[in-house]
């Protein structure tokens, strides 16, 4: 078996530093909330729908509360109060607010214990639903058998949920284990989640709850047809991390892209906002049994994959520590890395092998998410197809958890039906060809591959220790991550972060904290 000998000390140093960094945000997690967190609470209380102009009702309600400076206690209490006052459902409260028929600040205040009681009931209902989705998933896996390793993960991105369904069904029938519906460009930057089934997106399809539902129904059908559970995934990043997690939990998404720092670095979203949102978002994921996936690949699409390999390791360790704080178990941490080395570099395969083994061995329980070549994918589809084959080779050889298949048209367009099918064919052929190869091989002592892995680990440890000393926000402000400077108070969405006051109440946060044993 291919096994690295990693220096234990370096592993420990790196992990300790990451833990210190993640551990230093209790002030933020304990004392702040955000617009999207409050909208999440409303969604979990059962509020959905949108105005004619598309503005979702959770936004309408939260915005009204905010305008009335009534949000510091959270959105749950005022809405529960309105339910009691009017004796209507949470949804009807939102509808009335939406129609301009209800002003939440003008209602009589109900007795606190009544408010807490109704919130207790509502939150129990929703958590029961989520728990049921979780056990449905578990039952299906038990019935059909576990996912293959690596799992075959493909994207659909037509921009139209109905075309997406066709493409997803075809892919699943051909052997895909996980379908990712790529989001429309820049949805990250919307401070709301669009509503309903959508047919127009750019480079992807909007993530909406209805789109989630439509796709889940289609995949459940194929799961039955193929007697294989087909997982569904989407993106919980950007300005609506916890809302999307909640929607995913409700509609039984199985995985979510959910990175602690992606929004900051790659979307210029405010650092405080991002860390705060990811904290709650991940608690929902943890409870829902959703496997998170992190976006370390983004470091390498921007920077050089050899020179900056250590940034992947460092980010994985940070994502791990932040995830632990939200109650996510190692076996649900799809930490990311990517096959982005210049194909012109001699020994590109050996570099990749070292990096891929390093990730596997640092996180032995994690269903590591391995991203395909994209940066050096070119209009030469034949060459790109080969690069994807080398990527698939390493994925199987090193037992990655999830293989996000590369497409030969990566540099040209979002995948056509045939592109995806060829990608699956590529993976299936290579996976089978090198199925048990790992068992025959070992790594020569003092081999270049082993040395390279240790080098990257050391660089990561050193880097993280520097960040721990300096503070994460300070390091980001200085451009230590991905060469991009992100000041603590810069970026989008900071004005959506605010201090909770004493009376703040979030029934889900409280219950999840308990359920997850945090």
């Amino acid at each position, binding site marked *: 078996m291919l096994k690295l000998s990693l220096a234990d000390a370096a592993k420990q140093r790196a992990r300790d530093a990451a833990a210190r960094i993640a551990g230093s945000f209790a002030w933020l997690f304990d004392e702040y909330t955000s617009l999207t967190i409050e909208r999440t609470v409303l969604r979990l209380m059962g509020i959905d729908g949108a105005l004619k102009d598309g503005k979702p009702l959770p936004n309408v309600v939260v915005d009204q509360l905010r305008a009335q400076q009534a949000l510091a206690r959270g959105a749950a209490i005022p809405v529960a109060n309105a339910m009691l006052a009017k004796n209507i459902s949470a949804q009807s409260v939102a509808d009335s607010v939406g129609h301009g028929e209800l002003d939440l600040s003008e209602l009589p205040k109900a007795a606190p214990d009544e408010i807490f009681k109704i919130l207790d009931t509502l939150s129990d209902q929703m958590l029961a639903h989520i728990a049921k989705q979780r056990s449905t998933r578990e039952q299906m896996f038990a019935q059909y058998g576990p996912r293959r390793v690596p799992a075959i993960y493909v994207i659909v991105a037509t921009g139209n949920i109905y075309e997406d369904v066709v493409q997803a069904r075809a892919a699943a029938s051909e052997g895909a284990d996980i379908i990712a519906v790529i989001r429309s460009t820049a949805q990250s930057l919307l401070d709301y989640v669009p509503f309903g089934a959508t047919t127009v997106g750019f480079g992807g399809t909007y993530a909406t709850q209805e789109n989630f539902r439509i796709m889940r129904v289609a995949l459940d059908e194929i799961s039955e047809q193929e007697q294989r559970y087909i997982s569904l995934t989407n993106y919980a990043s950007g300005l609506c991390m916890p809302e999307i997690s909640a929607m995913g939990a409700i509609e039984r998404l199985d995985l979510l892209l959910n990175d602690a720092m992606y929004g900051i670095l790659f979307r210029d979203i405010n650092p405080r906002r991002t860390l705060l949102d990811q904290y709650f978002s991940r608690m929902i994921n943890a409870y829902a049994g959703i496997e998170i996936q992190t976006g370390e690949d983004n470091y390498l699409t921007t920077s050089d994959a050899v020179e900056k390999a250590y940034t992947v390791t460092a980010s994985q360790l940070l994502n791990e520590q932040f995830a632990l704080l939200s109650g996510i178990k190692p076996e649900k941490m799809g930490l990311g890395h990517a096959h982005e080395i210049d194909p012109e570099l001699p020994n590109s395969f050996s570099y990749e092998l070292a990096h891929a083994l390093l990730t596997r061995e640092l996180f032995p329980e994690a269903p590591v998410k391995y991203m395909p070549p994209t940066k050096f994918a070119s209009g030469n589809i034949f060459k790109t197809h080969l690069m994807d084959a080398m990527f698939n080779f390493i994925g199987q050889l090193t037992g990655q958890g999830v293989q996000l298949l590369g497409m030969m048209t990566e540099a040209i367009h979002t995948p056509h*039906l045939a592109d995806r099918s060829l990608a699956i064919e590529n993976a299936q052929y290579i996976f089978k060809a090198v199925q048990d190869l790992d068992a025959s091989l070992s790594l020569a002592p003092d081999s270049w591959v082993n040395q390279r892995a240790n080098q990257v680990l050391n660089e990561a440890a050193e880097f993280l220790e520097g960040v721990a000393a300096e503070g994460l926000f300070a390091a980001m402000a200085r451009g230590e991550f991905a060469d991009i400077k992100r000041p603590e108070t810069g970026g989008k969405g900071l004005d959506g972060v605010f201090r909770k006051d004493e009376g703040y109440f979030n029934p889900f946060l409280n219950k999840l904290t308990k359920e997850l044993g945090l």
Partner: protein
Amino acid sequence: MSKKNMIRPYGDTSGDGKMQLSFCLPVPPDAWGKEAARLLLKNIGYDEIEICGVRDLREGYTHFIAYAVTPAFVDPSNIKVKVVETPVMDMEATDAYIQDNIGREITVVGACIESDAHTVGIDAIMNMKGYNHRYGLERYQGFNAINLGAQVPSEELLRRAREANADVILVSQVVTQKNIHIKNLTRLIELAEAEQLRDKMLFICGGPRISHELAIELGYDAGFGTGTYSTDVASYIAITLAGRIVKG
């Protein structure tokens, strides 16, 4: 005519007409060459031409990879296919059928004719061991299968078939460069006609570029392409011969 029911290529939106192309032109790998490639596709009739790959092949040639949209479509009511229509039976069923309907062994003589030495295909049909878990004709009780192998001159094949009093001739042609298979197959049929053997036997040809349609065109009774199994051929022969016996 409404385009609604017409068949059009599909990339990621119904009827979007997307196609992938690759070709080489005697032009340099520069903007001029790329424009030549674009114009070629335009002249063929494509829209939304995207030349995404340009590879220098040296010696004045360049390889282009492109995606483009075709306005063309196919009217499904125009699609007519000539295929072998007899049902396919397994070995046991065919043997029983022969016993019931013909009552004697069918003699089959097969060969790769002329310069062709690709025997794997005809062996797959005829040899005992067969192909992909279907035994070949040699294994059938109802067939007397004589496989002459590679590079058999047409004259010799006909001579051996006459000697064996064959019911069926099987010919394989794999090499197709410069349409040599058409020439060889045509010559065999002409010789058979000259020798008045054509109507005495079933003439069946096969090979990766052979279709039933082409076979009929060339004057054969049937043709079999890629992915044929002995069962396809055996059933066809048994049923067709039984039909002739009844009629004849």
